[in-house]
């Protein structure tokens, strides 16, 4: 950091403000298939992003050349761009959008990544694929784990100086069962958490692998999901993606401001909706929560250096806040959260989801099922699609159960449902209690031009929705 400090001292006379963000991320990917080891690989990305404020606009230049000359060159490029295109700035910022915060953050881990070799981790995954193969009808069983360690150091001309270290374990495993030209796949569900290797709890995972393998075979005998309007209970491993696509993305302030219109799209939510719009039934409470230990996108500072805190986006069904960092808040005058993030050293920060959670309610899963005359429980996402305003959606799941007169009666295959966000959340009828609450997260939320794939977290209880259009396979 001393070296960066000296460089910034040099830069400061030529521009209104500047910062250096050093980003290093190391990812080990370990795989196993069909009771045998598969590939192991490691990737390391390391570089710096120089931000330069000049004439009201921030220009960025990222470089993997970490020498003083390399960073100087990046600064010169960013500054030159800012000077020469000054008349075409969209925004007119000053350095108040980059507060001078100091401090650090580190993922709390019990077992550090270094404690186990990649070969040992792979042998655990091999065991999981063995457990998945519950019968000869399993034709494919695979497992993977990804260990990611990210270090960010940030320093600016106005005194910001902070560091964050994230340790993230992502994993999934799945089994495909086959009979008479029909194939059915069941998986654990891709999940990422901020944890150490304690997340690879083999006692638990082997038990889960047996369940996943058995359910894949069970699907070969299952009935097709019916086409109907029914009560739908969503398990957290499906509902988290519903929240992601139909609450997270449409509330992003940069989308509402139109930045994203050429790629991911706009939003059915407008600037005037905040503070008054009934987004869902009054059971709906959605938070941005960067403080939940072990959730994928917990942090202390976003990549604009703004301190992050838990905030309600939707309270008792009413829309209060957008998912927008300090730049979007300044542009729109809409309350937001500290969520400006970038996925690597070579991309600028923009509004990202972070951890977007549904706060648990007070209904147990037993009571939820008891209250359903005819309905379906769906588990584990397998297909997702939504329009560019985030309204008309369709989701497919791997596995479902039929509920008749308050009891689970049958297993169903190829379950799907569709709806429109605008009215969907009004159908929320029951919110599961703490015992149904699970922490999920995806390493791959795509957005932005240039494109960025980033980690998001979703902590979600099981929920019941009334009157949903459900349907089966082709």
């Amino acid at each position, binding site marked *: 950091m001393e070296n960066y400090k000296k460089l910034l001292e040099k830069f400061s006379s030529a521009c209104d403000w500047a910062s250096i963000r050093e980003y290093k991320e190391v990812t080990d990917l370990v795989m196993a298939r069909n009771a045998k080891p598969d590939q*192991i690989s490691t990737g*390391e990305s390391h570089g710096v992003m120089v931000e330069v404020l000049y004439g009201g606009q921030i220009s960025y230049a990222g470089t993997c050349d970490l020498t003083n000359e390399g960073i100087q060159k990046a600064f010169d490029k960013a500054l030159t761009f800012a000077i020469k295109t000054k008349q075409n700035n*969209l925004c007119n910022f000053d350095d108040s959008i980059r507060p001078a915060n100091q401090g650090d953050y580190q993922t709390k881990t019990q077992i550090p990544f270094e404690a186990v070799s990649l070969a040992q981790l792979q042998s655990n995954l091999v065991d999981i694929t063995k457990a998945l193969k519950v019968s000869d009808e399993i034709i494919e069983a695979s497992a993977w784990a990804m260990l990611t360690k990210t270090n960010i150091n940030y320093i600016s001309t106005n005194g910001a100086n902070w560091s964050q270290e994230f340790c993230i374990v992502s994993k999934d495993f799945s089994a495909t069962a086959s009979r008479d030209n029909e194939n059915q796949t069941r998986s654990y569900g891709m999940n990422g958490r901020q944890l150490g290797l304690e997340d690879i709890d083999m006692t638990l995972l082997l038990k889960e692998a047996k369940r996943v393998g058995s359910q894949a075979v069970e699907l070969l005998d299952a009935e097709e999901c019916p086409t109907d309007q029914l009560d739908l209970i969503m398990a957290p491993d499906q509902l988290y993606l519903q929240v992601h696509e139909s609450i997270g993305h449409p509330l992003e302030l940069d989308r509402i401001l139109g930045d994203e219109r050429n790629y991911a799209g706009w939003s059915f939510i407008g600037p005037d909706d905040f503070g008054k719009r009934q987004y869902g039934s009054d059971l709906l409470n959605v938070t941005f929560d960067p403080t939940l230990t072990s959730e994928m996108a917990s942090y202390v500072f976003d990549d604009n250096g703004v301190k992050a805190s838990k905030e309600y986006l939707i309270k008792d069904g009413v829309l209060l806040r957008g998912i927008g960092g300090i730049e979007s808040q300044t542009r729109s005058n809409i309350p937001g959260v500290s969520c400006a993030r970038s996925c690597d050293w070579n991309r600028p920060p923009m509004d990202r989801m972070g951890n977007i959670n549904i706060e648990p309610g007070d209904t147990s899963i037993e009571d939820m099922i008891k209250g359903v005359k005819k309905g379906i429980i769906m588990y584990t996402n397998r297909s997702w699609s939504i329009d560019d305003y985030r309204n008309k959606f369709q989701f497919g799941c791997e596995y479902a159960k039929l509920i008749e007169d308050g009891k689970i009666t049958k297993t169903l295959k190829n379950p799907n449902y569709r709806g429109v966000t605008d009215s969907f959340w009004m159908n929320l009828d029951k919110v599961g209690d703490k015992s149904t609450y699970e922490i999920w997260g995806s390493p791959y939320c795509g957005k932005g031009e240039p494109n960025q794939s980033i980690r998001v977290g979703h902590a979600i209880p099981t929920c019941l929705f009334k009157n949903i259009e459900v349907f089966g396979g082709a």
Partner: protein
Amino acid sequence: MENYFNQISQYILSKKQTEEEVTVTLSGEKTQFVRFNKSKVRQSTDVNQLNLSIAIQKDEKEYSFDFSITGILDNDQSKVDDIYETCRSRMLDMAKATFFVPFKNNGSSSVSNIGELIEITELTNILCDETAHVDLAGILTSGISYRGNINSLGQSHWFESASFCVDYSLYSAKEKAVKGSYGGSTFELGAFKAILDESIRNLKHMEKDNKVLTPGKYRCYLAPAAINEILDTFCWGGTSQGALKQGSSPLLPYENEGKRLSPHFTLNEDFSLGLTSQFNEDGEVFTKKLPIFKNGQLENLLVSSRTAKEYGYKSNAAGAEESLRSPVIETGDLCREDILKQLGTGLYISNLHYLNWSDQKQGRITGMTRFACFWVENGEIIAPIKDLRFDDTIYQFWGENLEQITDFAETELDNHTYSERTLGGTQCPGMLVKDFNFTL
């Protein structure tokens, strides 16, 4: 850059011990990205990035390590020293690879498509000036991409390409939008203005009130950009021999039961497009042109060396993903002037959005209409439509419901930029399809 890659590769190969074989790959770019909103600059990013990958094989074990380098030999040599040591020590207790494919010498090649790109600030100001009277959102990408591959058995490949692309959409006051793009190696103001003017004209067509259609089956013309979206989704697991054996492919009935798509449908992997390197990540060189479907008949799936080894096929030098890198759908005989007449009454769909397999094993894809899509009656455009969700199978819309294919095709550059600029692209014609299924 080619020289630098040779230098650092030779240094790496010089460290190799006799029982080791090594492949060195480089992926890099010098790119400028400028993001626009309301025809102004929202964000600009200059990127200088170089990634090197060292893959080592020893005792039938394999491990690869991918890392950023600075481009300065002294610094990178000491980085390589560290990484090589890490690889060696980690490989000690690793298991032998299950389907071990030893590195080979797959020959040598060097392709350079470097033109003179216009200076980025100049181009940015031109774009802002020329579009000041409209509401443009989008991205300008300009720069050079590099790909290199050298191994210890004498293989050596290099590919570099300089290009720019303006990918944009225009919005009207009523939130109507059209999509456009202009790219290549030389920016010509006249050509860009012509494309922009056409977008502006199309946006005027959109000014009428939306026609709201009830879900159901409609006769449709799918323009090349819409077909490109479907092809993109199809490539995700659709052309993979491994996926077929592992039970996730939609093409099982085409391999096992002799089913056929429409006789109009011919799909090739065709590197004569020249948009991406013909060698894959292992330096294996794909044939110039391979038919996947010929007149509806499944001819070939993509087979990587690993899948070949595992299931006893012959590899056709596909990449590890076994997905098409340069697909071309062959044209038919529907000429541009006849599109509306042949469509008669139905939907003219210029773009599709957010496609996904809704049931991959059953060949079913869902997605949304987006941008300029119109309701057509008796060969005349009546009004833009309120967006619709489709959910239909490739067996239907590329099978018995495919009526005609246009006699022209459009090349779409792959302009994804996750981690780095993607190379490659597709060439797609438009298609006239009956009973295309809309559900929402």
